[in-house]
C-alpha cells in the first residue's frame, strides 16, 4: 500500500518539478498579490490598519496568500486525473492488481506536498519582505502542517470532481467556481467585520477562514490557543469528510 502511494505520488511530483515554467508560474500569482495588493493597501488610512490587528497590511494578508497558494495547488490536483483519463494512463493504473485507494491517495498526497512547497516559498518571500512569524521556526512548521491539511481537503474535492468529469473545460469551470468565492468570502483579504451580514455567516463556516485564522494566530495575532484548537478541529473534520468523499467517489467510478 505504502509503496504504491509513494510510487504514484512520486510520478506526479516528477511531472510537476520537471516542468520548471509551471513551478515558476504557480508562484507568480501569490507574488503579485503580495507585491501589488500588499503595497497598495499598505498606504491605507491608519484607522483601517488598526482594525486589522496586524502591524501592517502585508502582515495581515500573508496568511491569506499562503492559504490561497494551497487552495490553488489543492484544487488543481484533479487535473492529473483528467489527463490520465484522456491518455489512458488511468486504465493502466486500474488494470494493475492494486486496490483503488492508494491510487487516489497518491494523487492527493502529491498535490498536498506540491502545495506545501509552494506555500513555504511564498511564506519565505513574505518574510523577506518584512513579515514576521511570532512563533518562529515551530510556527512555520505548524503553518505548513495546517495549510497542508487544507490543501489535502481541496485536493480531495478536486479529485472527486475530476473523476466524474470528462473534459478540461468543465473541470476549469468547476475550479473557478469554487476558488474565487472560497477566497473572497473569507477573512483572507479583509476582516470579516467589513462584510455584510450574509457574507459574514458564509465566511464563518468557510474552511478557508479557519485555515487563515489559524495561520494568522501563529504569525501576528494574539496567541489564542483555544481558538486555534477550534480552527484545527474544524479543518480536520472538513478534511476527513472531503478525503473520504474523494476516495469513495474514485472507488465507485473506477470499480
Amino acid at each position, binding site marked *: 500500500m505504502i*509503496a504504491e502511494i509513494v*510510487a504514484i505520488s*512520486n510520478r506526479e511530483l516528477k*511531472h510537476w518539478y520537471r*516542468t520548471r515554467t509551471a513551478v515558476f508560474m504557480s508562484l507568480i500569482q501569490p507574488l503579485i498579490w503580495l507585491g501589488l495588493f500588499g503595497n497598495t493597501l499598505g498606504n491605507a488610512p491608519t484607522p483601517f490598519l488598526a482594525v486589522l490587528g496586524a502591524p501592517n497590511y502585508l502582515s495581515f494578508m500573508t496568511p491569506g496568500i499562503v492559504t490561497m497558494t494551497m487552495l490553488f495547488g489543492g484544487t488543481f490536483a484533479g487535473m492529473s486525473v483528467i489527463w490520465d*483519463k484522456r491518455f489512458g494512463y488511468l486504465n493502466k493504473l486500474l488494470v*494493475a492488481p492494486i486496490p483503488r485507494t492508494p491510487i487516489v491517495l497518491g494523487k492527493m498526497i502529491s498535490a498536498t506536498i506540491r502545495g506545501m512547497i509552494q506555500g513555504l516559498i511564498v511564506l519565505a518571500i513574505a518574510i523577506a519582505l518584512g513579515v514576521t512569524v511570532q512563533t518562529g521556526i515551530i510556527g512555520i512548521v505548524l503553518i505548513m502542517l495546517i495549510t497542508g491539511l487544507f490543501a489535502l481537503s481541496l485536493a480531495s474535492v478536486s479529485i472527486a470532481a475530476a473523476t466524474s468529469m470528462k473534459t478540461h473545460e468543465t473541470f476549469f469551470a468547476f475550479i473557478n467556481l469554487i476558488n474565487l468565492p472560497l477566497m473572497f468570502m473569507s477573512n483572507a483579504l479583509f476582516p470579516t467585520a467589513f462584510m455584510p451580514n450574509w457574507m459574514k455567516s458564509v465566511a464563518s463556516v468557510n474552511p478557508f477562514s479557519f485555515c487563515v485564522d489559524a495561520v494568522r494566530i501563529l504569525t501576528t495575532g494574539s496567541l489564542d490557543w483555544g481558538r486555534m484548537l477550534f480552527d484545527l478541529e474544524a479543518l480536520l473534520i472538513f478534511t476527513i469528510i472531503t478525503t473520504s468523499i474523494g476516495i469513495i467517489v474514485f472507488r465507485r467510478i473506477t470499480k
Partner: protein
Amino acid sequence: MNERDLSGKDDIEVQNLTKIFNGSVRAVDGITFNVKAGEILGFLGPNGAGKTTTILMLCTLLKPTEGTARLCRYDIVREPDKVRSCIGYAPQDISVDEDLTGLENLKLHATLYHMPGDLAEERIAEVLQLVELEDAKDRLVETYSGGMRKRLEIAEGLLHRPRVLFLDEPTLGLDLQTRAHIWEYIKRLNNEYGVTIFLTTHYMEEADLLCDRIAIMDYGRIVCIGTGSELKDQIGGDVIEVKLSETSPATEQVVKALKEQSFVRNVVVSPDKFSLNVFVDRGETATPKLAGFLSEAKLITNSISMLRPSLDDVFLKYTGRRIREDKASPEEFWRMRRALGRARA
C-alpha cells in the same frame, strides 16, 4: 500454424459476454469463445465492431451487462483482483507516461505489480533488451517515436510475465517497417515465454500473420472463428486466374470440358472472354493439372496465376461488406485518435 501444443487448458473462457451502452447500444452482443493456453487469438473487424469493448471487459475495466468470462480460471466480475494479477494489457492508445523516462515508466510498473527490487531490475533489463530500447531508457518518453512508444508499452505489458497478454491494435498507426518489427516481438513472446495472446486488429495481414485463430467480429457479434486457412477454405478453395492471348470459338467447348474435371468446382469467363476464373479446392495441386489441360486443349495462355481468398473475402461473405482499411497517414491518424479519445474519455 506452428508446432506448439495447444491442447492444454483454456486461459480465456467467454460465455455469452454482452455489453449494452445507454440501454440500447449492443456494443458486444453475446459472444462465446475460448482461448487455449499459449494460443494467439485475434479479433478482426472494422472500427466500432466491439473489439475494444471486449478487451476492456476481459481486463476488468468494464463490467459486462450480461454473460461471464473466466481468465486463468478466475471470474472477471467476482475476482477482478485475481484476474488483474495474471494479465498484461497494452491499450490501443499508447499510454506510457511521456513526462517520465522509459526506465521510470518500467520501474513504476514494477511497483504496481509488487515486484521486489532485484527481480524488477533483472526483468526491466530483460524486457528493454527484448524491445531494443536499452539505449533510450534514460530519455524522456516524449522524445520517443511512435514505434518506440508502442514497444515500451508492450515491454510494460510483459514486465510482470503475465499468463495472458491483451494487445489492443498493437500496430495501429505505425509505419510498415515498425509494424513488421512489432509482429516479430509478439511472435517471439509467444514462442519464448508461452504467453497466451489476445489481440484485436483491423489489419487483415496482421491477423493472418500472427494469429493461430481468428475471430471475425462485426456489430458486436463473432461472425466466424477458426484458423486463417479454415476461414478461407469456407470461401470455396482458391481461385486460378487464366489470361488468354486470343479468343477462339473453341473456348466455350474447352470451358465446358473444364467444368467436368474433378479438381474444378466452377469456371467463370470474363465478359471480354480473355480471362477465366477457375475455382478449385486446392490451388497448389490444381494449377499444374489446369496448365496441362489447357495446353492439351490448345488454348494459348498468357499467364496463370493463383489468387488466394483473403480474410476480406471471408468478411465479405459473412457481412456483405468489406473491412474498410484506414488509408490515413500516421499524423492524420493520430490526430483522429486524439479526437476520438476526447469523445470516449
